[in-house]
């Protein structure tokens, strides 16, 4: 089970005088069970890129392959691809429309052709996985708070039982607690249900802590594709792309300049803590 993007190019507004080359020669393989982060400055092509992964956009040139099959060859049903690769868009709470939370989560499974009771079953499971309290199941989604709405919207995609879940800035506009909650739930889905998670994010701290592979987009092409540690070692180059390393990495570099024997490759607070304590004991 893998998703391959081969030399994908995408242009917006072809045939007008407003052409923009949003994705440039992107080649990428996503394997089962990975937890991938995609970072990039606004307008670097992240959102356009992920829409290729479930066939919402057709590349202007290049190919998208799911399990070795070209998804745009005509015989491949895009609807089927979309049950395997789920995308949660930015501000997914704006897609809710049903009268109750439960019905809304059932929308995806029903589109997959499940019967009412089967759809209900997977909806329950998805809502539980997203830690939605049962008393909310029969409320109107419009009565919930922003963070809860977002969890419901994610459950709506999760209920389709995708093998791969792509989320476009799922934590945008949430408070620290809401952010942590969503990220922890995603990490659990990745660990326990072996769902491949692709997380588009603006927060270096979030990706440093959760993902095991980090892709950096710059002006439509992939600038780096490595582990977070390796990527953040290039923090000087990241800055020229309008990005940065986690704050704690800068702090470690400053400590090092002051003569402390600390590990400058630390990217999370936890790692930094260990390294500093070790340095103090020495």
């Amino acid at each position, binding site marked *: 089970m893998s998703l391959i993007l081969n030399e994908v190019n995408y242009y917006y507004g072809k045939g*007008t005088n*407003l052409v923009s080359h949003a994705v440039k020669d992107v080649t990428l393989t996503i394997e089962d069970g990975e937890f991938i982060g995609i970072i990039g400055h606004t307008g670097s092509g992240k959102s356009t890129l992920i829409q290729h992964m479930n066939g919402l956009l057709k590349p202007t040139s290049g190919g998208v392959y799911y399990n070795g099959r070209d998804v745009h060859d005509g015989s491949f049903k895009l609807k089927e691809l979309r*049950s395997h690769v789920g*995308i*949660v*868009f930015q501000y997914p709470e*704006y897609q809710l*429309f049903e009268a109750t939370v439960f019905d809304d989560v059932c929308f*995806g499974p029903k589109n997959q052709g499940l019967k009412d009771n089967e759809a209900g079953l997977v909806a329950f499971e998805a809502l539980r996985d997203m830690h939605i309290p049962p008393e909310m199941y029969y409320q109107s989604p419009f009565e919930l708070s922003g963070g809860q709405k977002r969890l419901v919207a994610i459950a709506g995609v999760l209920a389709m039982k995708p093998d791969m879940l792509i989320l476009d800035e799922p934590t945008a506009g949430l408070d620290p607690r809401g952010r942590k909650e969503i990220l922890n739930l995603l990490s659990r889905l990745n660990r326990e249900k072996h769902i491949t998670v692709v997380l588009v994010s603006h927060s270096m701290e979030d990706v440093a802590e959760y993902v095991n592979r980090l892709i950096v987009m710059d002006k439509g092409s992939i600038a780096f594709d490595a582990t977070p540690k390796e990527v953040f070692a290039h923090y000087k180059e990241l800055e020229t792309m309008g990005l940065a390393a986690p704050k704690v990495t800068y702090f470690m570099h400053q400590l090092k300049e002051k003569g402390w024997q600390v590990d400058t490759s630390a990217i999370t607070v936890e790692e930094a803590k260990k390294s500093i304590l070790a340095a103090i004991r020495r």
Partner: protein
Amino acid sequence: MLRDITIGQYYPEKSVIHSLDPRVKLAGALIFIVSVFLFENIIGFLVMTAFLAMCIKLSKVPFKYMVKGLKAILVILILTAVLNLLWSPGETLVQFSFIRITKQGVYNSLYMVIRLSYLVIGTSIMTLTTTPTRLTDGMEKGLHFLNRCKVPVHEIAMMMSIALRFIPILMEETDKIMKAQMARGADFESGNIFQKAKNMIPLLVPLFVAAWRRASDLAMAMEARCYHGGEGRTKMKPLKYQQMDKKAYGVLFFYLLVMIVLKVIL
């Protein structure tokens, strides 16, 4: 589908038409609309086509882009054509049982289709070459005299500019919600008309909610900046007629004159 609607969209380009005063373009669109309903014969139609072609050429907007606007009214066009074709009196041309096509009917349906398409293309030229802000500025200034008869010109212009401004935003929003629902397996293409209408619910409900939210946010933002209507409000870029605008008026009145003369003598 919805993305194909180009009415009310702006196409940035540097052309004579783009740089004209919006009042000229408004007057032009008005004169053109009048002329569209004046013509009844082939010569008037030719003059009109020539005028339209000249405007399109001068505007440097690709012709393809304008025709795209017609897609949105395709159903209306077909309906008009069919109705006019079937229910027109006059000399019978062909007859199958109860369907009777007359010579008059063929002319009527042809003319109506041309009229409607020209109407859309003509007004598209105006909106494609004028930013919504300039358009409403032009409208406000051009209709300022109505203020004396207690017509709230500024408020109407403001409402229009907000409405125009929101078209691309709502379009983008539609696109986003559509994609989000398609990612959840929604199908907007297949099925008969009733199924299609039912399938639109997952799109229309969030869209309506979003429009409502945007409207209330905007109202709040306007109030926070002490908006109180047009009284005593000055402009950063007041509209002033240039040499080019005067020439354009000349061309417009000449065109109107030709159309009237043609109408009278033919």
